[in-house]
């Protein structure tokens, strides 16, 4: 792990990965859009509105994944003082917030025609809204300190405490009565979703993963550069 702790090595590694992750994002998005919007069939109950699923479900998955990355890197930063962990956590937050926001908006656009309501205060929707607030709170807290190390530490603690929310989101549809339908892909055994719909969903999910990797690497690069700038400024002050 400490092999990747070296920022120079990380920069070299990220420069090698970035063209691939960016290229994959574009190709997979294109395939996902064509299969999702044109090739895949309409649902026998939900009609064409089911196509919202191909952006809604990957957004939800990525919202939770980006938060998990943030919480795990925060733990690594707190325990091992790993120099890159704070930067990874900090860069994961805006992407995760964007995914969570998209999940809520697309879900609302799906809920209106299917449930007859833009929003209901049910466990799945409410816990997802809390996830968005956790992201926004984390970003505000991290940037609220003059000393970035103190901001990162405060943010890491918030990220870890808020991690409780992730399993709550995941199991909310099983624990409480809800309008939201339960998981149909990540069920034990066979996914209860028809293959022509599963393909665009999985392609879109992969596209969102590649997108996330791209944004995360770019963000960490920006943070490493910012840290170098700060270090130079500090030596200038002391000279």
């Amino acid at each position, binding site marked *: 792990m400490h092999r990747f702790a070296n920022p120079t090595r990380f920069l070299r590694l990220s420069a090698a990965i970035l063209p691939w992750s960016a290229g994959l994002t574009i190709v997979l998005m294109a395939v996902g859009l064509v299969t999702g919007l044109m090739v895949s069939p309409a649902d026998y109950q939900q009609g*064409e509105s089911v196509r919202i699923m191909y952006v809604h479900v990957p957004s939800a998955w990525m919202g939770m994944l980006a938060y998990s990355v943030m919480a795990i890197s925060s733990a690594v930063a707190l325990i091992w003082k790993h120099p890159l962990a704070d930067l990874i956590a900090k860069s994961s937050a805006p992407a995760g917030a964007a995914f969570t926001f*998209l999940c809520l908006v*697309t879900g609302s656009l799906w809920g209106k025609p299917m449930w007859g309501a833009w929003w209901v205060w049910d466990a799945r929707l409410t816990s997802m809204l809390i996830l968005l607030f956790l992201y926004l709170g984390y970003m505000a807290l991290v940037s609220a300190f003059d000393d970035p190390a103190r901001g990162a530490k405060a943010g890491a603690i918030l990220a870890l405490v808020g991690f409780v929310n992730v399993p709550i989101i995941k199991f909310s549809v099983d624990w409480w009565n809800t309008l939201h339908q339960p998981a149909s892909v990540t069920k034990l055994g066979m996914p209860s979703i028809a293959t022509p719909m599963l393909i665009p969903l999985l392609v879109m999910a992969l596209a969102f993963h590649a997108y996330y990797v791209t944004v995360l690497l770019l963000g960490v690069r920006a943070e490493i*550069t910012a840290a*170098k700038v700060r270090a*130079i400024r500090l030596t200038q002050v002391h000279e």
Partner: protein
Amino acid sequence: METIRAFFNMGGYGGFVWPAYGVSAIVLVGLIVMTVRSMRAREAELANLQAVLGSRRAAAQAQRSNRKVLDGDA
């Protein structure tokens, strides 16, 4: 023409499907543009700072060697 209209109509759900895809496109493109911009801005700042430092260091070096020449003269 009819198929294009049917495609955009989305079985009557066009008013929900297209905004969902539209807002996704705006948010995802917006975030990547913002991230790239902030990265470029910081890299430019670093390059600037290093250039200033480099020229300052060179100036100090020149001054030092100048003084050495003057001391040698005296």
